[in-house]
C-alpha cells in the first residue's frame, strides 16, 4: 500500500477557448520514505499535479477525474476543512520562492511556533523547542538567534532552509517540493538538495521533487515520472530511466544536456518546442518533434505500456529498445 497513490488524475481548466486539459490520466505513487521526481518542461503540468494533490488549484482549474489516495483517504473528494487539516501537517509543500511560505512581517520564530500550534495542541515553549531543533537540523547556524530574525535578513539559501525546517515541523509523511533550488546557485543547490535527501531519510518522509532538471532528479530521487504536455510519457526507477531512456522525448532531453556530449560538437537538439495546452496535436503529443514518428503516431494516443522495467507511452517503444527503429 503506497503512501500516496495518484490514479488517472485529470485536471481541466475551462476557459473561453474551450476546456483545456492540463493533466490527462496521470498516475504515480510514492511509498513511505520514497523519493519521486516529476520532470517536465514549463507547461508540462508538473506543478499542476502538485497543486492538485494539495487541493490548491487556482481557479478555474479543477480535478475532473481520478483518485488521489493518501493514507486511506481520497484527497480529491475531501472537504476544504479536512484538506486544510492534512495540508501543512501530513503533507508539506516547498515552493521555488521561499517567500511563498514566509511572511515578511513576522519573525522566523513566530511563524514556526504558529504553524506548529495550528496543528498540535502544545505549549509555546514546547513549540519553540521543536522549532529550534528543526532549524538546527537544516544546519542553520545559531538557530536560537535566527528565531528572532525576519525573512529579509536571510539570504536566499538560508530562507529556503527555513522553509524546509517549517515543512518538517509537523513530521509530515510527504513533502512536495516544487523547483526548490531552481533560483539558487549550484553550490547552494547541492547543499540544500543533499540536506533534503538526508532529512527525508532520517525522518522517513516521502518526497515528491518537481523540477525541470534531470541531473538533480538523477542524484536525488529513486523513481521518476516524465511529463510532456499533460501526460506521463515515461516513468520508472530513476536509474533505469536516465541510463536507458526509451521514449524519444526522454532520450532527447538527456542527450541535449551539454555536460554529456563531446565538447564543441553540435548538441542533439529536439526540434520545435512543447505545444501550449491550447494547441496539443492529435495522436501522440510529441509526434511533431519526434524523429521516429510514423503515420500511426498521428492518430491515436499511445497507451502507457510496461516495457522491460518501466512505463513508456510510445507506439514504437519496443522497436526503439531493440534499436531497429530508424
Amino acid at each position, binding site marked *: 500500500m503506497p503512501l500516496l497513490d495518484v490514479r488517472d488524475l485529470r485536471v481541466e481548466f475551462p476557459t473561453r477557448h474551450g476546456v483545456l486539459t492540463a493533466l490527462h490520466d496521470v498516475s504515480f505513487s510514492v511509498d513511505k520514505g520514497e523519493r519521486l521526481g516529476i520532470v517536465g*518542461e*514549463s507547461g508540462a503540468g508538473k506543478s499542476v499535479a502538485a497543486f492538485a494533490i494539495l487541493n490548491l488549484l487556482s481557479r478555474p482549474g479543477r480535478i475532473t477525474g481520478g483518485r488521489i489516495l493518501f493514507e486511506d483517504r481520497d484527497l480529491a473528494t475531501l472537504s476544504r476543512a479536512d484538506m486544510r487539516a492534512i495540508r501543512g501537517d501530513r503533507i508539506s509543500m516547498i515552493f521555488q520562492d521561499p517567500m511563498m511560505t514566509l511572511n515578511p512581517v513576522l519573525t522566523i520564530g513566530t511563524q514556526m511556533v504558529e504553524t506548529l500550534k495550528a496543528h498540535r495542541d502544545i505549549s509555546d515553549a514546547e513549540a519553540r523547542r521543536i522549532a529550534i531543533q528543526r532549524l538546527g537540523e537544516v544546519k542553520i547556524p545559531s538557530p536560537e538567534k535566527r528565531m528572532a530574525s525576519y525573512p529579509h535578513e536571510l*539570504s536566499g*539559501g*538560508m530562507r529556503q532552509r527555513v522553509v524546509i525546517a517549517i515543512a518538517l515541523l509537523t513530521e509530515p509523511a510527504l513533502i512536495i517540493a516544487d523547483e526548490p533550488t531552481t533560483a539558487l*546557485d*549550484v*553550490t*547552494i*543547490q*547541492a*547543499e540544500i*538538495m*543533499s*540536506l533534503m*535527501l538526508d532529512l527525508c531519510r532520517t525522518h522517513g518522509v516521502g518526497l515528491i521533487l518537481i523540477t*525541470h*532538471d*534531470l*541531473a*538533480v532528479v*538523477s*542524484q*536525488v530521487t529513486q523513481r521518476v515520472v516524465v511529463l510532456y504536455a499533460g501526460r506521463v510519457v515515461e516513468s520508472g526507477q*530513476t*536509474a533505469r530511466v*536516465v*541510463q536507458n531512456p526509451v521514449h524519444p522525448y526522454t532520450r*532527447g*532531453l*538527456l542527450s*541535449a*544536456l*551539454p*555536460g*554529456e*556530449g563531446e*565538447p*564543441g560538437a*553540435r*548538441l*542533439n*537538439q*529536439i*526540434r520545435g*518546442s*512543447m505545444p501550449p495546452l491550447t494547441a496539443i496535436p492529435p495522436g501522440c503529443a510529441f509526434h511533431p518533434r519526434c524523429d521516429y514518428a510514423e503515420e500511426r503516431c498521428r492518430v491515436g494516443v499511445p497507451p502507457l505500456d510496461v516495457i522491460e522495467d518501466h512505463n513508456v507511452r510510445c507506439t514504437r517503444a519496443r522497436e526503439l529498445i531493440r534499436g531497429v527503429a530508424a
Partner: protein
Amino acid sequence: MSGHTQTAAAPAASGTTAPAAVADRPLVEVDGLIKHFDLGGHFLQRERPTVKAINDVSLGIRRGEAFCLVGESGCGKSTLARIVMGLLDPTGGAIRFDGTRIDGLKHTARKPFHRRMQMIFQNPYASLNPRRTVQKTLEEPLRFHFPNLSDADVKTKVEQVMVSVGNDPSWGTRYPHEFSGGQRQRISIARALMVDPDFVVADEPISALDVSIQAQVLNVMMDTQEARDLTYLFITHDLSVVRHFGTRVGVMYLGTLCELADTATLFENPRHPYTRILLSAIPRISTEEMKPPGLPGEVPSAMNLPSGCVFHDRCPLANARCSAEVPRAQCQADGTLVACHAVEEGRG
C-alpha cells in the same frame, strides 16, 4: 589581483610588447577593471555604502574564441559584460577593443564599436520590444549603422540573417509575444548579427529556456561562430555549458578573477579551491547521490569585502596569509592563471 602582474592576459597594458605580437593581441582587453556602485545613503553618513562589484579584474579575449565567464550570482560577471558593452561605466581600469580604448568614449566616437560589438540578453521575454514587429526590430540596427542601404537590400539582409539562425523569414510581420522563448532568443541572436559584428557578448542566453530549447540555442550560437568567425564572451553560471562551449574560461568570485584557464585544462585540473568546489557541485546525470560541496557559510556582502583573499573565510586551504594579503594571479606552467596563495605555496 593586479593588472600588471597578469601580463599573459593583457600584454598591451604596459606597452612593452614587441610589434610582432600585434596580430596575437587579444580582441578585447579588460585591464585592471574596478566597478563600485554607490548606494547613495544619506548625507549624514560619513562613509557612503558602496557595492564593490568588480575589484581589479584583468583578462584578454582572443580573436575567434568563446571566452566563458562563470561564477555564482553576485560575482560580477554580468557587470563586467555590461561594462565591456558600454552599458555601464567603469570606476577604474580600461577596456580596449582591437587596441583602442573604448571606455568613456563619447556617443559618436563609439558608434563604429557599436557595430562591431553586439550583445544577446538573458531574458527572451524582455529583450525584444513588445510593441515592435520582428521586422522592425531586426531592421533597426541595420538602418542605424548603414543608413545608405536601400529598402530592398535591408530586406534581403534581414531574410538572410533570419535563415542563418534557423528562423522562418516570414516571421517579420509578427510581434514578439507570438513566439516561444527559444524562438525569441533566436530572434535576439539575429538582431545581434544584423550588423555583422566581430564580437558578441552573451549574458546567460540560455538560462531562462527549457532544457530541450537550450540545446537549439547553443547550436545556433556555435554554428554562427563557425560561419562568421565570431568572438564570444559568454556569461553563465552553468559549468556544463562552459565545458561544451568554451575555449577558455574565467572563474569569478565576489568581484575577483580566481582562475583563468583553457576549458579542457580547467575541467581536468582545477587549481583554485573555489573552482574545485564549483566543479564538484555541478549536478550531472548520475546514480550517485548528491553530496554537499563542502563550501561553508555564505558569499559575503560585496559592500563589506573580506580582507586579503575574498574567498579566505570559506576556503578549506586558507591560512593567516590568505586573510592578510590579496593573492595575485600567477601564471602556471600550462598558461593557467590562478590567484591563490595555497596554490602558489603548494598547500593542499
